[in-house]
């Protein structure tokens, strides 16, 4: 198996993807990802010069527009129904910039 990723790389990816990993999980994830990336090798071996990529299976899509008119939509209450924490009709989150800053 080729070492495509080190544990350090996998830790960086986890941070970027916002997934906490324990040290044991990190070891297993590194093994799994390296093994999966090995199987992707055929993609790197084709002669693809001049081949246009297909980003979407239906070729002839055109932009879909509608009249910009008001419609019924979720009320604020419904939109908040599944929120783990809310306050004063808003989603509640911990501080973003850390605690104890100037107010």
């Amino acid at each position, binding site marked *: 198996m080729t070492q495509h990723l080190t544990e350090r790389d996998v830790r960086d990816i986890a941070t970027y993807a916002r997934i*906490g990993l324990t040290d044991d999980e990190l070891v297993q994830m590194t093994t799994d990802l390296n093994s999966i990336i090995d*199987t992707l090798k055929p993609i790197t071996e*084709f002669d693809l010069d001049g081949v246009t990529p*297909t980003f979407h299976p239906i070729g002839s899509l055109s932009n879909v527009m509608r009249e910009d008119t008001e419609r019924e939509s979720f009320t604020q209450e419904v939109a908040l129904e599944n929120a783990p924490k809310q306050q004063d009709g808003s989603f509640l989150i911990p501080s973003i910039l850390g605690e104890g800053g100037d107010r």
Partner: protein
Amino acid sequence: MAFSTDMGIAQIQAGLRAGNFTAREVAQESLAHVKAADEKVHAFLELTEEAAYAAADRVDAAIAAGSFDELGPLAGIPCAFKDNMNQEGTHTTCASHMLENYVSPYTATCVQRAIDAGCIPLGKLNMDEFAFGSSTESSAFGPTHNPWDLDRVPGGSSGGSAAAVAAGLTCVALGSDTGGSIRQPASFCGIVGVKPTYGMVSRYGVVAFGSSLDQVGPFARSVEDAAAVMDAICGHDELDCTSQQVKADFRAACKQDVAGMRIGIVKEFMEADGLTAEVRERTLEAAAKLEAAGAELVEVELPHVDAAISAYYVLGPCEAFSNLARFDSVRYGLCDEGHKDLGGQYESSRAKGFGPEAKRRIMLGSYLLSSGVYEKYYYPAQQVRTLITQDYTSAYEKCDVILAPASPRTAFKFGEISDPATMYLSDVFTISLNIAGNGGMSMPCGLGRETGLPIGVQLMSPQFKDENMFRVAMALEKEYGTAPVAPEFSDGKAGE
């Protein structure tokens, strides 16, 4: 004739029309069968009894008023939905702890259309977590068992949908297919499973996995029942801008024969590594039966199809990584409270909410989209997609439908395949079709000579010519009969 949970749509509707039983009785007996039998199968994650009885009462009222025929093609028919489909007031968990307590505030278009067509919605069905898998073993709420052999997997990711139909727990069900998630479980459970052309059925309200690959489709025990579901759910939806205006009449297509149709046999598939002898045998047998019914067999080539699996395992995880970024522990989904900063809450909530396979795919997608790696894998995968699409276009110049195995083997035992990369190979015959966006379905074609387990043959159609494969499927069904309920779960009343 009394209602039987083995019945198909035509039998149930004839019984309702004749007054042999009421829709309320259909709902009652179906729910009772689920409660008794699902302890063994574990296909259902939630029962929607209130919605089922409300729908049944609407059907009974229509029968009393003489307006039964004005109801849709699924009037009075038990139906259930994969748990990645929003249905207002139900939990839509995607079989993940992440969404364990999420309650849908709205209804997916496919579910709404099935309900509008008169179905009796029984509940929500188990799946691989977020549809990542081919065995339903990755469900956070425990696996589903194959009704033909409870020690084996039902396939996946729509394993709950396939097992529910195979065990007679529901007449029809909806699933979703990103790389084979309808066709492979249909093949493992011996029933009909259809992955329509991308754009045929609205994806609105279906929790997204790979947005350029996902498509919703039916499971049923007969081709005509699958056709009735297709007629109910397909067509343009202004809430999904990739859904297309389609003029299709699947039930009408079922009345056409296959005389003169050209059936393509793909050399690369029939010679593939890992294709078991018994699956190969049944596939060739199905081809011979079609030839005897008046179709012409032609050999076709898909020279780039080998690259489909690797292209899929680049594109799928990249799209999944992007789609699963929405689970932020703020608006909905699991939240691990008590963190002082938002970053800590994100990491800890996503660590607790997602299972191992979901984490692998998110991490893989994140890696593959990073600078330098994107150029090595992601962009070439989209170029390979062009080659695979061109392969299919050339093949369809020579044939109307392609016939292939649905899965290289019959259902495997729990835990038998533990390596993720090996598990991915179980989709070798189904994946290329999602990459190209074409239609495909799995049709039961008997039991394996060695394993005695169901085998499915896959029929594939060009984009938006899905009716073609229904014609061929009907010809096969004339030979093999409609799919039976798995022996252990038949109530034995259908012939009374």
